[in-house]
């Protein structure tokens, strides 16, 4: 059985099957972009082990086709196994082995990057301090106990749990959350946006600010803004319904909405968290971009937007930040600017954007445990090429020396070059 298994894994047939599956996946995934948009297709078809199908909006998903990761992994295993089975190691193939190892390392590194890389953004206003970054296109329901003067207890419920609806209970929450409505994408609603059913709360800003369903965004430059109607339920009964949406928490949506709504909301700041009291403790509730908390904090001291003198052409964008890490004692100022990111605790902070009026900076935060693999892979490939070249060169030099010793000086200048090839009966090549 083992022999049979090895023959399958190393078979060319499996290679062809994988390549055909990849072909189909790319074709179907490309077509699906029309309805789902780029990011959803990437997640569903390519950054997945399987393409799942959920029949009739049910709770079960069935794998119906291999995803990009699985095809890549099987293909890699197939190539490696075939290599191991058929490759005959000889010292003359050191270079080729290194080159192939580099390429395989590159593929593995890219796979690790796909799985483990986390990209987020940190938006800091001048003078502000942040100890978290926010994920684009992902949201979480946050219940924050703000009673203590120094620290907040944060309980976060991922959007995927919200999407399932029903009742949510967590040991850290003294109440239950009932998801009465969940809109994957929403739009603020007025009297003429009555096509879909609007969500209306009994507590908080959602009494005045309504949301109605919106189609899922397929545009690359736009993000969905989910909304939900959450009922907080104690042992004695419901405490009320709150409307939550990233319209109120994601920049720049909340700023646009705030500008737009004006006195309709009684000039209540949208960013003012909705809160309620239960059991003598004050809780805030919000649907916000998914946060990655850091054990350190960064304060934006200044943001600079330089121009070439006498022109409107941007010369440089830079952020002067103060890094404070109580755990390590790190306490220093850092300048982050174009092509000069800050690397700290496995994360890289790039200068990405800024707020209108230079009011703040937006840093892209990348955590990639496999970030070193491309460098190692390229080094292996380069080393392999050099080794292979030197081996050929030494062989050539050796043969040339032998031919010079064996034969008198030749008439043409090309003869020393051609002689070793003739001796082998073929052309010399590197």
């Amino acid at each position: 059985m083992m022999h049979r298994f090895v023959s399958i894994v190393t078979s060319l047939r499996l290679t062809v099957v994988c390549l055909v599956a990849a072909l189909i996946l790319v074709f179907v995934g490309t077509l699906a972009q029309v309805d789902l948009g780029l990011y959803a297709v990437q997640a569903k078809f390519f950054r997945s082990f399987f393409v799942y199908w959920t029949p009739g909006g049910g709770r079960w998903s069935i794998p119906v086709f291999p995803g990009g990761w699985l095809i890549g992994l099987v293909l890699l295993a197939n190539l490696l196994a075939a290599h191991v089975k058929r490759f005959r190691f000889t010292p003359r193939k050191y270079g080729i082995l290194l080159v192939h190892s580099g390429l395989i390392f590159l593929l593995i590194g890219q796979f690790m990057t796909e799985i483990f890389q986390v990209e987020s953004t940190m938006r800091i206003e001048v003078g502000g301090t942040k100890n978290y970054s926010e994920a684009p296109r992902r949201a979480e329901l946050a219940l924050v106990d703000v009673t203590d003067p120094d620290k907040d207890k944060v309980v976060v419920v991922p959007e995927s749990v919200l999407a399932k609806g029903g009742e949510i209970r967590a040991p850290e929450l003294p109440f239950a959350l009932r998801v009465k409505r969940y809109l994957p994408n929403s739009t603020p609603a007025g009297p003429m946006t009555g096509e879909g059913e609007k969500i209306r709360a009994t507590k908080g800003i959602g009494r005045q600010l309504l949301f109605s369903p919106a189609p899922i965004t397929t545009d690359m430059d736009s993000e969905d803004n989910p909304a939900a109607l959450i009922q907080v339920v104690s042992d004695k009964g419901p405490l009320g319904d709150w409307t939550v949406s990233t319209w109120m928490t994601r920049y720049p949506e909340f700023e646009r909405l705030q500008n737009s709504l004006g006195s309709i909301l009684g000039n209540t700041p949208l960013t003012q968290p909705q809160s309620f009291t239960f059991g003598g403790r004050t809780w805030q509730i919000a649907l916000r971009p998914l946060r990655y908390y850091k054990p350190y904090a960064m304060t934006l001291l200044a943001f600079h937007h330089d121009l070439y003198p006498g022109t409107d052409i941007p010369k440089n964008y830079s952020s002067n930040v103060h890094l404070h890490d109580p755990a390590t004692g790190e306490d220093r100022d850092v300048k982050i600017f174009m092509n000069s990111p800050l690397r700290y605790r496995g994360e890289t902070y790039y200068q990405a954007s800024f707020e209108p009026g230079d009011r703040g900076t937006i840093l892209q935060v990348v955590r990639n445990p496999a970030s070193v693999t491309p460098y190692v892979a390229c080094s292996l490939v380069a080393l392999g090429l050099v080794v292979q070249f030197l081996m050929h060169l030494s062989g050539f030099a050796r043969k040339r020396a032998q031919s010079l010793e064996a034969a008198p000086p030749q008439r043409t200048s090309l003869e020393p070059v051609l002689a070793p090839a003739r001796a082998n009966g073929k052309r010399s090549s590197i």
Partner: protein
Amino acid sequence: MVRFTCSYRLLALALVVGGLAMPWVVRADEGIKTYTVPKEQPAPIQPVAAPQSMGMDSAMPASDIPVSSAPVSWTTPAGWQELAPTSIRLGNFLIPGKGGGKAEVAIFSFPGSVGTELDNVNRWRNELQLPPVDADKITSEPVAIDSLPGRLYDISGASSRTVVASLPKDGATWFFKMRGARDTVAEAKPAFLDLLRSIHFNAAGSAAPPAPAFDATMPSPHANMAAAPAEAAGEEPKWTLPPNWTEKPAGAMIFKSYSAANGQGRIASVNISFFPGDVGGVFANVNRWRRQLGLPPVGQDQLAAVTQPLATAGGRATLVDFAGTDSKTGQAARLVAVMVPHGDNTWFYKLSGEGSVVGDQKESFVKFVQTVRYP
């Protein structure tokens, strides 16, 4: 043909089991989590000022510094007050005029074509309380903006005037709009043309700008939630309530709500709301109200038959009076509603309730609407 031997079956089984288990494996970190974090320190409130610009001559006037976020730059004409940009308005100016008049200028852009030329012109006309025109009555002149061909529209109302330049560029439409008191706009028009001549699209401006959700001066992509500048600033219209009207808590999206009692103590409801833009226009709103009363929708050609023009202090308005069955309660009901386009907004006044009470209150209601003084 692949023969499904025992090994193939094992491989297939492993893949299926793996596939079924993978969602739980991959989503294992997507459960409910709890953190204890230091309290977030809010950023100090900063004045929204002209952008900082290291390396620039500090003596350079702020107006000459392009807005940092803008993919467009300009030279602000002398005497104009440059206001802080908003998330919508890349350029934002106030022009003080003689005799207390003033005008404002906004530079903004939207993805796409933002409706037809006729839609845009009639919206601008509506802001000036002018009736709509047909496409063949539109007047405009060509204008070059950063060497690109745009169109310039100049529309005068009774007391206000709008001058707008529009420019389609890279899948977006740019608008340069001046609106204000007639005299002030007339006086500022040469400077406005200078501003257009100074416009320069930066390299970043070649890309379509991000889709702003709302804007004070444009129809919102979301139909009705655009900015309401005057009202947002806290300036509210002034009115005198008829007798027997008492204020009650306003519902969602309602600005003010009143109970209007007749002599027998029976009560009708008065709701006042305002929304930026034309909120779908008269036609859409008329049919919305008809749906609420279980009445069949009317066509455009029947609109005149079911609406009445109404002169108000805020400008030309539209009144409807429908009787039908309340679609929510199933009771006979009557609805009198007035749409008053004013400035960038449309105000809605709605009297609804039992037919007899609404009939008793209609005269007071109409007078009330006519005498509302807008900021």
